[in-house]
């Protein structure tokens, strides 16, 4: 299927932009949903602007490119940011230091190659000294990265070397719950006031305001989730005029109507409420497991440095057990790790911490994909009819 298949705008029953977007969506089927979402919005914004400027829909689509060409261009977007910039910096610095060495457009090519493959860039960039230095830097980086990745493949404990696991731990153990609490309080407070004021009509605009704020908060949550859980979120808010809507003017009321009709508004609202109990459970589980793990790992370390694991004032009837061994305070009331308990304690703590990392990583994957699904949800455009 290509742009030539798109019928012209002669048919009153078919919006050519809508037909093109459907084809583009199909061409991007194998892409990340957030990237597909962005690509569709880019295309829609561009084509509507082009048509509004007087270009015929068929010409605007032809100038934009066939769905396959555009899909290929989007698939080539590097998945990690910053790598290209560092390659550019290395290249530019080296170019500045050399005198009249022949520089070529290969510089940039080498930078792009370096961003995607250190091996390829090493071959491509051998033609210039600048590109070679950029490639060498990236080659070192690539080797270190490869070593790091091989550590991640170690069964069970490989999760310790996975940055996403640590970021997920930060999300579920620190930032996720306070945010979820703030969202919940906001929705419940404004929602209750709005419902209470419905009889005097002020409630209605308040409810619409709540819906708008839910969309904004959901977008913000998406950015937080992308940062901590590493799943790409759309770079664009959803269009005010959805795919297939032929409206050319977006007024205040049509914007509000769009919010009300958009399934993402309601999904966002549901997420902000439903996220609270789930975040609470995730926060509790993460904190309990990680604190237990840290305590179990920490006690043998304290013992190693000749420090007590605690201080207790208790009567004779109280008994404290640690790993099936009774722990008795000394004359000063200090509790010491029982002999032989250090290694089991450390291993058990390590197991708890590893389990915590696996748990947060798993929860993070599910969470991130739920948030992504909410943000990219769109009514699938109907198949064009000829």
């Amino acid at each position: 299927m290509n742009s030539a298949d798109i019928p012209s705008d002669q048919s009153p029953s078919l919006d050519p932009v809508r037909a093109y977007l459907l084809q583009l969506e199909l061409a991007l089927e194998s892409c990340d949903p957030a990237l597909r979402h962005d690509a569709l919005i880019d295309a829609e914004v561009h084509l509507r602007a082009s048509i509004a400027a007087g270009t015929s829909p068929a010409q605007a689509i032809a100038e934009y490119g066939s769905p396959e060409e555009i899909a290929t261009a989007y698939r080539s977007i590097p998945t990690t940011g910053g790598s290209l910039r560092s390659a550019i910096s290395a290249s530019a610095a080296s170019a500045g230091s050399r005198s009249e060495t022949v520089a070529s457009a290969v510089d940039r090519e080498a930078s792009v190659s370096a961003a995607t493959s250190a091996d390829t860039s090493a071959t491509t960039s051998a033609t210039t000294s600048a590109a070679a230095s950029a490639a060498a830097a990236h080659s070192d980086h690539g080797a270190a990265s490869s070593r790091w990745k091989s550590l991640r493949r170690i069964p069970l404990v490989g999760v310790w070397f996975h940055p996403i696991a640590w970021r997920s731990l930060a999300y579920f153990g620190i930032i996720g719950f306070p945010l979820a609490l703030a969202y919940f309080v906001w929705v419940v407070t404004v929602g209750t006031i709005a419902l209470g004021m419905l009889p005097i009509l002020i409630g209605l605009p308040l409810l619409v305001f709540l819906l708008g704020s839910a969309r904004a908060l959901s977008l913000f949550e998406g950015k937080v989730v992308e940062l901590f859980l590493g799943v790409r979120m759309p770079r664009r808010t959803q269009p005010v005029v959805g795919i297939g809507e032929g409206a050319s003017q977006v007024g205040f009321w049509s914007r509000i109507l769009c919010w009300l009709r958009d399934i993402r508004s309601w999904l966002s609202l549901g997420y902000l409420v439903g996220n609270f109990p789930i975040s609470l459970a995730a926060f509790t589980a993460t904190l309990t497991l990680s604190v237990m793990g840290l305590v179990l790992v920490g006690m043998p370390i304290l013992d190693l440095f000749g420090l007590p694991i605690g201080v207790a004032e208790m009567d004779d009837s109280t008994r404290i057990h640690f790993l099936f061994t009774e722990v008795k305070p000394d004359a000063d009331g200090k509790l010491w790790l029982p002999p032989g308990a250090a290694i089991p304690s450390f291993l058990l703590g390590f197991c708890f911490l590893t389990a915590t990392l696996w748990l947060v990583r798993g929860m993070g994957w599910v969470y991130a994909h739920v948030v992504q699904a909410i943000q990219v949800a769109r009514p699938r455009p109907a198949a064009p009819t000829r």
Partner: protein
Amino acid sequence: MSAPLDDKLERDLSVGTAWLVVLATIARAEEPIHGYEIARQLAAEAPEGLSFKQGTLYPMLRTMESEGLLRSALVPSSEGPARKCFTLTADGRRVLVAWHDTWRRTNKWVNRVLGGVDELR
């Protein structure tokens, strides 16, 4: 045999120079500029016989933004969804200057070498 090769240079050059001309178009705009306007200006100034698919501009802009060369802001539009308008960051300006320098030197070198093949025409 040579027919597929006829376009090879054009394709290779467009890959190499697209970033440069896009950065330059954004740099010379007096206000934040949106994707459609960048595409329009590039199409208007493209020499005859040279064309580029405007849709390929957007993934390029995204990559530039994620690399810190551009910053963007959404500006409401009366013609549909809000438009994303771009400006160069300090890094973007620095890279543009470096690439411009590279381009001038490359251009000089290529012209010098090509001077010797004029008689083939």
